[in-house]
């Protein structure tokens, strides 16, 4: 009795929050996606799959999202792992806190302002001008997929660094001594002990970054200049400019479905390679 009540007290606030702000809106979006655009814009009730049949007209947005979100996640992982390893294993403990703070410092400034900085850096008078002065030819960076990739990796790197750092930091160093004692050279110890035991952190970081990237809007908007746009940008366009709520809802539902499938597959993959351990909270 008391146990049951305690459970409801604990779950209640979050449950209400999710029900009102996630489940309900999602249901609304799902219903809208089966409707039509009202003549003056907005939503007109209907029961048709016409919006889904039309998804192909926004193929480029899906293509960009499904290419750059995984690429961005992978690039962030490749940059974050060595950094997290250095911070957790190699860095002098006296400097560790300072270095960790330095990783988050960029977060103290709005992503909007930081993206403006990237516009100048990647724009005509930034890095390309420098390269051209050095005689390395004319390279256009701004408004390319590369610019968007740079932007998203830069923006989301800390979200990848921290979970990996935590899993590496709590790794029992005696396990590495045991591995060495049993005849494993350092790089083999890394592959057989450190890496597998840090996979929960890799999984958490990749999930966080990937899910957020799939819904990214601001960075492609600013660094892609309307040429490299994500599903998020298409949604803004559909809801605010074209006022085609039904089609926008169909796109949103499709994006959520794609995310559910990829995340499920990724989890299954991790479980198979043994990263699914009780200490992630993700699985």
């Amino acid at each position, binding site marked *: 009795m008391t146990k049951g009540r305690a459970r409801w007290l604990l779950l209640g606030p979050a449950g209400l929050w999710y029900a009102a702000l996630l489940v309900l809106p999602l249901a609304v979006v799902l219903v809208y996606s089966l409707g039509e655009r009202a003549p003056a814009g907005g939503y007109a009730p209907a029961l048709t799959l016409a919006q889904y049949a039309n998804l192909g007209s926004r193929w480029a947005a899906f293509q960009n999202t499904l290419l750059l979100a995984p690429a961005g996640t992978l690039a962030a992982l490749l940059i974050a792992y060595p950094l997290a390893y250095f911070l957790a294993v190699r860095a002098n403990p006296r400097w560790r806190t300072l270095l960790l703070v330095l990783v988050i410092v960029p977060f103290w400034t709005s992503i909007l302002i930081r993206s403006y900085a990237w516009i100048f850096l990647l724009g005509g008078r930034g890095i390309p001008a420098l390269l051209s002065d050095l005689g390395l030819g004319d390279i256009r960076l701004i408004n390319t997929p590369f610019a968007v990739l740079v932007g998203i990796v830069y923006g989301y790197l800390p979200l990848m660094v921290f979970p990996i750092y935590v899993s590496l930091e709590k790794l029992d160093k*005696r*396990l590495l*001594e045991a591995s*060495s*004692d*049993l*005849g494993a*050279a350092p790089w083999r110890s890394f592959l057989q002990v450190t890496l597998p*035991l840090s996979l929960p952190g890799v999984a958490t970081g990749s999930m966080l970054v990937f899910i957020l990237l799939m819904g990214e809007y601001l960075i492609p908007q600013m660094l892609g200049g309307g040429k490299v746009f994500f599903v998020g940008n298409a949604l803004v366009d559909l809801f605010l400019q074209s006022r085609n709520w039904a089609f926008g809802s169909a796109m949103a539902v499709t994006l959520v479905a794609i995310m559910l499938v990829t995340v499920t597959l990724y989890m299954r993959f991790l479980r198979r390679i043994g990263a699914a351990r009780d200490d992630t909270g993700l699985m």
Partner: protein
Amino acid sequence: MAYATQGETIAEFVNTTKRFGRVLAADRLNLKIGKGEFLSFLGPSGCGKTTALRMLAGFEAPTEGRILIDGQEVGAEPAYRRPVNMVFQHYALFPHMTVAENVGYGLRQRRPRLAKEDIAARVTRALDTVRLGDFGPRRIWEMSGGQQQRVALARAIVNEPKILLLDEPMAALDAKLRGEMQTELLSLQRKLGITFILVTHDQQEALSMSDRICLMGKGRIAQIGTPRELYDRPANRYVADFVGRANILTGTVIRNIGEHALVRLASNHDVVVEAPHPVSPGAKVDLAIRPEALRLATAPQPGLPDIVAKLCRMTFLGEHVEYLLSHPALGQLQVMVPRQAERALPGVDTGHEVHILWDQGNGLILGQD
């Protein structure tokens, strides 16, 4: 069992010193360890015993001096190239592997590679040896503390090391399990014939298991010897105090009597004690006598000095009763009386005066620390 002088030497410390910053963790260790020997490094925490073990394992490099394993100098060799294996204090088992994968880890590092079937067979044999035959597919966290200890043991012995290093392996087990494990370790060592080096702070463990004990204090070797040598002939005050219990008294040598000496105690009683080293008459010396080497009586005994002391406390310990006495000149004295002998003390209670009987030849003169 004098492994240091007979038989082959498997490992040797030569003036081995280890400093951590300004801390001298090991100070000029000199020690030969015999093939097939069971040697214990005994001492309180911070005495350097773990440092000595870690230098053998290759986790620490000596600051000065040398370490030899099987005649080869290993000072700079990393742990993964040394023919020794360790059972860690908290086992350090790999949580992401099964029991069998843990045990096979060392074999999988071998180059050239061993055949899969060969590894599987050796793992099975090692698990059988530690009586965990059916536990191979289990996960580490499904095993109890005692079982994890056996897994750690199997993971080390499967590699057939030249030396097995044991870093306080029984510290985390409860008393009953510890006793069983000690017996098991001993029989395993006899069976495998591998040199075992045990680090422990538990003197009972060291006394009951070791061929020889290397007692350490403040980074130095205080005494090396068989358990009996350490107990019966402690080299100095530190050893007498650490191994077993001892009454430590001071006295003045009156004269030598062969390998014994007549010593006058602070209470002006003359006792005959062992003198392992020659002493000159008139010298001030420390004496040690074990509580069980003294006797109590209600009357003096002719031919023995009549030491009368006041009984302060009696502690019943089952097989023995511990008497704590106080003497105006000698201070506090412990006497351990077997239950059988307690009958000779009818009606003796705290506050009473009793006679301490010091038999000729009991106790010995200690060397300098």
